[in-house]
């Protein structure tokens, strides 16, 4: 495991052990950052990231780790990436899973962002990873959509006040990615090869965050889908229902 030396810029990513978070961590390590990953699982054995093991759904655990996360800064870039989903009919998923989902996807990044900025532990950029569902809806994952909308609104809200402290705020809206998480929640027969490569999405998102842009999509296709959701909201959400909700054969949380 790597030691933080103090000479290199530092970055923090939540959920850095796999998926898009893993891609963020590898990209930043390759770009010369010291990287801290907060995740319920340790980073992969070969990774040079410093792991802080913390289940973000667990308030007590988060509060216990907050000082260590702040102390490992200051960070040039913080990526609030950790997310979980729950797919199925709204009534088929236990309420407890919805609680966990809101805690990981919305509450933890808000608590962390507020604590980090208040402690002056960020000297650069924050990026909140929301979802493309922000521009349409997500029948079959209504609470996931709620959690990601909430995160996007929080990011938009803090953009100005945090700018006064020299911190930029970016919201990322990724579309479908080629990750294990997405595969677990996708309906049967969903095409994997058309999904965006997480490494490409990570490059795109990190570039926008470092440039201080307000919003970024995972790629051009995600941007088009967001536009469709805005221009044709009814058609787009019906399409979402047909390709996701109507095809779900199981409830996953």
């Amino acid at each position, binding site marked *: 495991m790597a030691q933080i030396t103090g000479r290199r810029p530092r970055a923090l990513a939540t959920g850095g052990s796999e998926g898009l978070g893993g891609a963020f961590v590898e990209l930043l390590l390759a770009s010369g950052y010291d990287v801290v990953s907060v995740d319920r699982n340790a980073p992969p054995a070969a990774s040079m990231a410093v792991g802080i093991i913390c289940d973000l759904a667990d*308030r007590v655990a988060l*509060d216990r780790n907050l000082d260590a996360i702040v102390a490992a800064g200051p960070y040039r870039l913080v990526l609030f990436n950790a997310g979980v989903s729950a797919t199925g*009919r*709204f*009534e088929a998923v236990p*309420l407890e899973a*919805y*609680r966990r989902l*809101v805690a990981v996807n*919305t*509450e933890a990044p*808000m*608590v962390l962002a*507020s*604590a980090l*900025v*208040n402690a002056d532990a960020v000297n650069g950029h924050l990026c909140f990873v929301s979802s493309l*569902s*922000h521009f*349409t*809806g*997500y*029948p*079959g*994952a*209504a*609470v996931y*959509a*709620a*959690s*990601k*909308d*909430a*995160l*996007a*609104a*929080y990011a*938009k*809200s*803090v*953009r*100005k*006040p*945090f700018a006064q*402290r020299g911190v930029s705020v970016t919201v990322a809206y990724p579309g479908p990615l080629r990750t294990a998480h997405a595969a677990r929640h996708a309906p049967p027969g969903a095409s994997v090869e058309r999904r965006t490569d997480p490494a490409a999405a990570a490059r795109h998102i990190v570039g926008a965050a470092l440039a201080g842009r307000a919003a970024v999509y995972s790629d051009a296709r995600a941007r088009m889908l967001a536009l469709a959701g805005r221009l044709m909201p009814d058609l787009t*959400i*019906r399409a*979402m*229902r047909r390709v996701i*909700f109507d095809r779900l054969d199981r409830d996953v949380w």
Partner: protein
Amino acid sequence: MKPNILITGATSGIGAALAARYAGRAELLLAGRMPELEAMPILPANAHYVVADQSAPEVAASNIMAALDLLGWESLDLAVLNAGSGWSGDPASEPAGSIRNTLEANLVAAIALAYGLSPLLSGGRLVLIGSTARRGAPLFASYAAAKAGLDGLARSLAEEWRGRTKVQVIHPGPVRTDIHAKAGFDPGRARRFFTSPETMARLLERALASRRSRRTISFPRYLAAAVTPWLR
């Protein structure tokens, strides 16, 4: 037969004004944080009341479910999830406890109630009261987040439940209620431009009749209502 209507957050502000409008035309189950003895003088006569503190979502939901059971209501024609509360100030100094409480009371409580009420809402209507703050509000960051969450929930559920239960989210602009004082925010002279709860309740009832699943009651809409008071 009178419709069965549930309204949460019914002891003050928009909820109380909406309850007053429906009184006499509907069977009302009203929910609020206050003890029953305190709430009774505020509520319309013949309305039923249940104590439901949204900052404990599961308890609030189970109290409401128990009250519905006690009343013997097997279905709801309309559930208006209106209860809300917030914190105001620099988002960097918002304590973790306040972030958590704001998400619990505004978002998780609505999820828990939609979850519990779902079987009773077949053929009925679920209305979530959001806020125009959902587009982003620097002084109400966690509140804006929670209210945007309601929008996402409603957009998705409206499609998921289409043909069974109509789901709407209505985003009111600022209303002259005590929510700002409770949140520690003084709107100052801007308060004069805030809608009265009664006007907002009237606009809400009109929005409820619309076929759209998302309505925003913005300032122009309010102005239009102010100059057309006969449109009741």
